[in-house]
């Protein structure tokens, strides 16, 4: 089946437009006369007939392409599919850091994760898994905590109801603060941790990349 050029254009426009398009808008966009647009719409009405899955409808002062009413059942099943709302690795790590250290700021999360977390945190707030927890009394960056929706999703009885951690190998002043915080919150045993002083890992040959 071949459509006229204006009909092809109108079809693409009806397909993409989030709202019904009045004839006058179609004329403007396609540079066609009202008559030509009307003919295009007629062509499309014929193309998207009852034997197909779609139809051209005139609603709310404009034209639109939509699925046919008798296909509502199958469309509902599409809607009922569990949304693609999996927790990505990035989201999971960010959630873990916040859950264990809350309240915690984005820069703090970033330092621990080693990557920027701005967009991850923003999207987790949007999804309702994190929420703002105010700024520290002395000012500074906004801190975040996990939400009730987060606890429900992960089956936690309350904030801080988390699996205990066993190893803590990071070193440095910032790491020490993190370690103390984990110990105080009861997530990490006090003796689980202290990184092996200066006998640090020796066995790494120079030039041997290690993250392969």
């Amino acid at each position, binding site marked *: 089946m071949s459509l006229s050029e204006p009909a092809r254009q109108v079809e*693409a426009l009806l*397909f*993409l437009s*989030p709202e019904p398009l009045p004839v006058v808008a179609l004329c403007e966009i396609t540079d066609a006369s009202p008559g030509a647009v009307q003919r295009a719409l007629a062509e499309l009405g014929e193309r998207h007939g009852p034997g197909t899955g779609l139809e051209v409808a005139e609603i709310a002062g404009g034209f639109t392409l939509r699925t046919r009413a008798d296909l509502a059942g199958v469309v*509902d099943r*599409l*809607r*009922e*599919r*569990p*949304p693609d*709302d*999996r*927790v990505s*690795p990035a989201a*999971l*790590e960010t*959630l*873990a*850091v916040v*859950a*264990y250290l809350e309240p915690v700021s984005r820069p703090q999360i970033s*330092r*621990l*994760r*080693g*990557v920027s977390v701005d967009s991850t945190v923003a999207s987790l707030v949007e999804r309702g898994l994190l929420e703002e927890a105010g700024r520290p009394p002395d000012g500074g960056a906004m801190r975040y905590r996990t939400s009730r929706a987060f606890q*429900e*999703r*992960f*089956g*936690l009885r309350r904030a801080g*109801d*988390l*699996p*205990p*951690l*066993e*190893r*803590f*190998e*990071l*070193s*440095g002043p*910032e*790491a020490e603060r*993190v370690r103390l915080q984990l110990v105080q919150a009861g997530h990490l045993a006090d003796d689980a941790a202290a*990184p092996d002083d200066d006998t*640090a*890992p*020796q066995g*790494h*040959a*120079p*030039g041997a*990349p*290690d*993250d392969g």
Partner: protein
Amino acid sequence: MLAPGMPAPDALQQPIALDLFEGPFDLLLTLVLRDEVELLELPLVEVVTASLGENARERWDTDTAGELIVLLAAMAELKARRMLGEPGEEEPDPDTLEAREALAARLVAYAPFQRAAAWLAAQARDHAGPRYRRMPLEGAAPPPPPEEDPGRLGEAMARMLVAPPAPSLTHLTSRRVSMPAALARLQTALGRARAVSFDAFTDGMEPLEEAIALMAALELARRGEVTLAQAEPFGDIAITGSRL
């Protein structure tokens, strides 16, 4: 360093901002080889200072230090040859050959990805036209997402608390290399004598310092403060002050 994922600061990774070119050093070298950037117009001193910088010691690990030295040396050699205009028919010394081979091997190994990038660019051009209807489904709210295992949180956290394997720093020289200092030293030497022999000037220097000294000489030549003369390829370079 705290996070295992925190990338080791890498001298090679520092973007270099030059008038001519803004990008990482290696890419610069590649461009020079493709004749997209004129080697003679590149102030090497800027490349070097931007690469090594003042915090060179903190930035370096063994791998990158090695790579950087090889690349800087190769680049210095290329530039030197262009500036000196030597026909250079003779066989270069083994070290130079080795550095050159290493560089060539790297470029060859990386070439497939550059070609793949070109393929991707063509794909993007071919697929630039279609538009997608990305409208959220209307109607009743979807059912709640499945429940997650809380154990995953513990695992994710644990992975972040594992110490990254520490790179050995034993091969790193603790000597600081400073381009400005090399320039100053050379200028001082030229203040005492009208001409300086490069070999004499660099006697007893580490290879890296020697490379820096060569670049300092090239930089002064670029500024017009000295002239360089080399009787034969890989022979001694006479550095002559051009001020009165």
